[in-house]
């Protein structure tokens, strides 16, 4: 492959890494926002059934949230780019 082709592959990876980083930041913010909905006492999380139940539900929520903010679409596009990259070689 030419140096230009190899660079195109690397640039393509960088593009998706930038998008992943943005999604990662949103997941961090959402997780911290969730944390603040939990019951606390004197600034400490309460080990209550209500809190543990919320936490269990959060697993499914955050997975769905990632889909909503474009994680699955990103994976699809990452794969869809391959034929174009192959053409460059």
């Amino acid at each position, binding site marked *: *492959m*030419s*140096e230009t*082709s*190899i660079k195109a*592959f*690397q640039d*393509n*990876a960088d593009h*998706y*890494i930038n998008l*992943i*980083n943005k*999604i*990662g*930041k949103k*997941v*961090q913010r*959402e*997780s*911290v926002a*969730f*944390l*603040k909905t*939990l019951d*606390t006492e004197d*600034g*400490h*999380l*309460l*080990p209550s059934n209500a*809190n*543990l139940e919320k*936490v*269990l539900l*959060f*697993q*499914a929520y*955050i*997975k769905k949230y*990632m*889909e909503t903010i474009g*994680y*699955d679409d990103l*994976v699809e596009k*990452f*794969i869809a780019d*391959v034929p174009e*990259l*192959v053409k460059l*070689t």
Partner: protein
Amino acid sequence: MKAILKQADAANLALLQSIDVDELLGIKDQLAISVKTNLQALVTGKASLIEAVISVEKSAGVLSQHAATYINTSRSTLSQRITDITAGHLKEEGGGVFYEYFGSPLDDRTRPECVIGLGHGSSANYPNAPYFTEDEKASFEAEFGLRWNCRHEFNLITEAYYKKVTS
């Protein structure tokens, strides 16, 4: 050197892509489990809210690191696979295959194995690095395995060029 890809090679490349889909969607699932497990431990351990925020930010941030590493490695694996397929076709046509270990120049992030690959380390196994014969390339890959996040790969060079630079 231009890549040589035939119709039958599409299945080989499609397999790589299906692995990518599984792996990247798997990272999403793992992240959700990891964040939940971390939250459970924080709640049952009566962690302070400040401590919990730091811990949750860290566990959620792992997504970026894992997915980015996977994406980087996936693209370089694809690129290397195309080179390897091309090498296979050249051999079918009776030609010899030779490689240059190619990529980012030496810097403070370069791993020891890549220093060797780039020809800046001393290794009796790869006396002509960054130029490699087919056997030397196979030996290097067997010795160092899959190089996650690596910024280098083996690029094909002609036999004439190999002879010129190693003579």
